[in-house]
């Protein structure tokens, strides 16, 4: 049979080809300008919302300030931060992880609660094993249970914060220098991180200062204690002259408040007793009493570059603080990995991040160890005070002043990770 309109027939055959070419060219164009979407999974509602939302503000600001306002990354693509509210519950984390997968997110920032980080780590590892080519990268900026880079270490997990044992090493070194401390009381939340703090402090103090007596080692349920006064009564009765705690959020404020209300004038060594209203609430009572171990000195800030970052952040968010400067560092390292690999493939990014050496806004050189994906950076012990503070917390006039600094190379701990590396 002869087709009556040969030309039309040829055209109709070619039409799908045209269409495909057309769509494909649009797709490529769209890809070049489509944003790089990065998930941020942390509590944005519920009891722990303050920590999560302040982290989100810092990350969003860092993305805009460092990259989007300077023409984007990867030849003009913008960074878009996608908030995923996990309410700091491992169950909700699974649900949000599913959502992230279905939305096509390939990179997830997560920081709060080691229990959640562990749950996410398991979910990510399982997902990546079952869905080759669809892998997801977990960037942990704050969960400090050592297990995440030791027994449970994963190729897909990177930690941008010193873990609890590294921090306690620095903290106990500092405590060991103080001859006045003879009796130490340890109190913490009854979960993985609290236990790590308790066991490690006890072990390290015994090594460094065998003369210090541990007069109390107490756990309390996390987020359940209404009033810490009964615990403080025990601290007073034990004649302790210093306290170590890994508490965060309301548990930290309540504990410190109760200690101060009881008239007990002893130093409190902590991890998380600043910002998000805590510094303002403790105020003058916390002066020269509250000490924190952390990275990135808050006062003095060593470089003009980071000072400007803080000032511009304050201008954009007058009620907030740069609570976790390492979020900006983690993002900048990720972007460097993207530029190096020329894309956003998690496997390639992971390879690029391994053994990356990076100079932060503070001018410090940090190292992401390839064998366990643990970062090493300068660590500081700071005190809450209102003297010599250029950048305060909670607009309270009080802030953190560095008293003791340990350079990155002295914080390096032994690698205990036997990593299962994916094959490609």
């Amino acid at each position: 049979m002869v087709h009556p309109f040969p030309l039309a027939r040829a055209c109709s055959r070619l039409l799908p080809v045209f269409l495909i070419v057309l769509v494909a060219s649009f797709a490529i164009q769209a890809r070049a300008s489509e944003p790089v979407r990065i998930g941020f999974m942390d509590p944005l509602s519920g009891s722990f919302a303050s920590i999560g939302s302040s982290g989100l503000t810092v990350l969003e600001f860092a993305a805009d300030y460092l990259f989007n306002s300077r023409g984007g990354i990867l030849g003009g693509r913008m960074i878009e931060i996608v908030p995923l509210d996990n309410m700091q519950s491992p169950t909700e984390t699974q649900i949000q992880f599913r959502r992230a997968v279905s939305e096509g997110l390939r990179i997830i920032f997560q920081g709060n609660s080691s229990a959640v980080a562990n749950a996410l780590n398991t979910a990510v590892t399982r997902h990546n094993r079952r869905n080759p080519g669809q892998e997801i990268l977990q960037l942990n900026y704050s969960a400090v249970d050592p297990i995440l880079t030791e027994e449970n270490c994963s190729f897909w997990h990177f930690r941008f914060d010193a873990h609890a044992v590294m921090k306690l090493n620095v903290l106990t070194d500092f405590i060991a220098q103080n001859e006045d401390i003879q009796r130490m009381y340890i109190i913490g939340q009854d979960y993985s991180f609290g236990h790590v703090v308790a066991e490690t402090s006890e072990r390290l103090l015994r090594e460094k200062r065998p003369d210090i007596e541990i007069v109390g080692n107490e756990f309390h349920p996390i987020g359940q204690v209404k009033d810490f006064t009964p615990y403080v009564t025990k601290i007073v009765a034990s004649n302790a002259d210093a306290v170590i705690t890994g508490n965060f959020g309301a548990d930290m404020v309540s504990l410190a408040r109760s200690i101060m209300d009881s008239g007990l004038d002893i130093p409190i060594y902590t991890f998380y007793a600043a910002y998000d209203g805590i510094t303002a609430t403790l105020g003058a009572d916390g002066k020269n009493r509250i000490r924190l171990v952390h990275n990135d000195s808050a006062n003095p800030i060593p470089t003009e570059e980071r000072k400007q970052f803080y000032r511009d952040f304050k201008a954009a968010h007058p009620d907030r603080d740069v609570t976790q400067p390492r979020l900006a560092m983690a993002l900048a390292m990720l972007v460097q990995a993207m530029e190096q690999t020329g894309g956003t493939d998690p496997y390639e990014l992971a390879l690029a991040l391994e053994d990356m050496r990076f100079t932060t806004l503070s001018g410090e050189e940090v190292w992401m160890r390839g064998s366990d994906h643990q970062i090493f950076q300068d660590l500081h012990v700071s005190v809450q005070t209102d003297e010599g503070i250029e950048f305060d917390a909670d607009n309270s006039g009080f802030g953190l002043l560095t008293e003791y600094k340990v350079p990155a190379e002295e914080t390096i701990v032994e690698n205990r990770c036997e990593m299962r590396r994916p094959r490609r």
Partner: protein
Amino acid sequence: MPEVLVFATLNGLVTGLLLFMLASGLTVIFSMMGVLNFAHASFYMLGAYFAYSISLYFGYWIGLIVAPLIVGVLGALVERYGLRRVHQHGHVAELVFTFGLAFLIEETVQFFWGADTKNYQTPELLNFPLFTLFGQEFSAYRGFMLAISIGIFIGLYQVLTRSRVGLIIQAAITHPHMVANLGHNVPLIFTAVFGVGTALAGLAGVIAGPVLTTFPGMALVLGSIVFVIVVIGGLGSLPGALIASLLIGLLQSYAIAANVGMPELLELLGLEFPPSHPLDDLWTLDLAQIAPTLPFLLLVLVLIFRPAGLMGKREQ
């Protein structure tokens, strides 16, 4: 040890009486309307936040008076325009309504005040130690909390048992139709009781905010424990609520103070387990570690052995 005992008792009393201010409102509301108000602790939180905001402009003492009033009015409005409409659909609907309300209030608080801990401080006037015993200070503010809570209990008890209003309320609890037939406006009584109950919760929030920290999770921390008290004390019983509040306050306080636990118990029994034992976590558990969960254990025990609660009159 005596110093620990004295302070544990004082701490237990402060906590217990604070809990009573919440539980009293909840239990009276329950006995009148038959509904467990899940949002009760949320009104406690609202009290703290309102008082915080007011204290920024007018000082603590104005907040102490005004904040509970605002919370009370809010509570009355919730009853009048929310609960009463839902009431016709039965108790389950009411329960779900208050459950939703609790979440709504928490999110609203975060929306307006943010998620951060609020810098709500005790007033200057009470910023001194009331007395110092064995090297530990008991702050004047805690004494003030004790005084307010005791005052509230006495006042509430007098009103409910001695006054005409109290008589009508008591009658409305058991015989609402008869009271209505006698010409009293029963729905109005309900609204008023709900308002006063939430105002009490608000007052508890105002006085607890500065010491127990004002943050969006404060309702959650206290919410569950208040239910435990109401159930243990016997639903609807005011003296029961008082006894249960003190019982739980003291129980927790003593449990934390006591330096005993499984290791001591095992020693007493002459048993020993190696640290590598699979149940090592259990063998090393001490009482202080589980103190905040003890009330829930008590709840389960009371429900098994005395389902009506300590002073409850509920018929089976």
